[in-house]
Every structure is written in C-alpha cells, then in structure tokens.
C-alpha cells in the first residue's frame, strides 16, 4: 500500500455517512424556521405600512367611500337576493353557487 493510500485509508475513519437524514432534516428545519421569520417580518412591515397609509389617507378617502357605497347599495342588495334565491332553489350553499368550492 502506498503512503497516500495509507493516509487516505486512515482519513476514511472520519468520514460521515453518505446519507444522514437526521443532519439534513435539522439543517432544513432551521432553514425553514429562518424563512418563516423573514416572511413574518416582511408581512408585518407591509401591514404596518398599509395601516399607516390608510390612517393618513382616511380623511380624504372616507367621503369617497361613503359616496360609492351609497351608489352601490341597490346593486349589492339585488345581488344578495339573487344568491339567496339560487341557494334556496338549487339547495347548494353560497360557496358552491359562486364557484368558490367544488
């Protein structure tokens, strides 16, 4: 056996298994945990930004929203009546009727 082969054979003792699900799972669990925390941080930031913007714009938005809602009220009532009638006639609930559920 050559010197290099001898060294390599002795070094082989330190070799971890080729597949180690426990190690890989531990790494990926930590990766997913960090990714989740990063997502939560981003969503929290966006929500805070949106809330602040809404708070700042509310005085100018409110009259427009009131006007729109008054204008749309008859259409919304008519739509609700159609959906209720459909549910009663077909015997299915609203989600199925609107195609939101199968």
């Amino acid at each position: 056996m050559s010197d290099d082969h001898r060294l390599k054979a002795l070094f082989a003792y330190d070799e971890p298994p080729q597949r180690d699900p426990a190690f890989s799972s531990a790494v990926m669990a930590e990766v997913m945990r960090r990714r989740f925390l990063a997502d939560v941080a981003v969503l929290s930031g966006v929500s805070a930004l949106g809330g602040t913007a809404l708070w700042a714009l509310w005085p100018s938005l409110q009259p427009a929203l009131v006007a729109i809602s008054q204008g749309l009220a008859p259409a919304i009532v008519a739509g609700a009546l159609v959906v209720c009638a459909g549910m009663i006639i077909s015997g299915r609930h609203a989600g199925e009727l609107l195609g939101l559920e199968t």
Partner: protein
Amino acid sequence: MSPASLDEALVAAAQAGSTDAFSRLVERHQQALRAFLRRACGDWAQADDLAQETFLAAWSRIDRLKAGASVRAWLCGIGYNKHLTALRSGSRERVREASYEADRDPTRCAAPEDRLALEAAMGELPAEQRACVALCLAADFSHTEAAEALNLPLGTVKSHVTRGRSRLLQALGGPDER
C-alpha cells in the same frame, strides 16, 4: 446528468427560492463538508455544528454563487472561514476528547495506534496546513480547487500539502520526505 450539471441545476433552482433543491444540495454535500470540518477542527460535534451553520450561511448567500462554480469547494470555503472565526473567538472551547471519543467506534479502525498517531499529528499542524491536507490528501480536492476554497495562493497550498504529508508520514513511522 453528471454530478456537476445536477449541482448547477439545483443551485439555479435554489437561487429561484426552491427549498427542495437546497435540501438536495444539503444531502449531496453534507458528507464532504462534515468530513472536511472534522479533519480541520478535530472535534466531531463542533464540526457538525459548523457544518449546519455553513449550510445556513450558504442558503442566505446562494445568489452569490456563480454558475458553474464548484458547490463543494464553495461550501468548504464558507466552513473553513467559520472554523477560523471559531478558533479566533475561542467561544467554542470544548473538552475535545469527550466529544471526539464519544463519537468514535474503535472497532471500525484496523490500526487504532495509527489513527491516534495521525490524529495527534494533524492536531499539531497549523490550521491552514491542516485544512490543505484535509482537502487534498483526504478528500481528493485538486490543489487548484483547494486554493479556491481556502482563498489561498496555489503555491501556498502545494507547499502546505507537501509539508503536511511529510509530517503525517513521519508521525506514522513512514519515510520523511523533507
């Protein structure tokens, strides 16, 4: 698909945000990285901690890995820097024998005295030389690949490997080629 092109495809998918692709990269390279760190720091438990930190750092820096670069060398480079940081900080001081001896299986070793002599000789090598030996003599890295991984000049790697090999063989009672 060759291992290199499979790595390249997995890296591209991981760079696009696929954790499944990164998980496969972890499975494919954990053995090489952990083996290198075990030889570089001599403490199996610490090596596995460093390997885990290395993969986490790799995930956050995966977009910096250039297409076609060796994933194995890149990971070993990150792991080596983490090992050097741990050495400098001294925060990972552990009772080496306790963890190392607990993990080993003496029945696996045909010549335990040779193993102990090799381990002692590796422990006496300077960190840089030890890393070069661990990559080139134990893990079949080319000198160029090791130089890239450890961020060292090619000539320095060659010189470290030659000197390290000579010291290890001397410790094992073989020829001293200095």
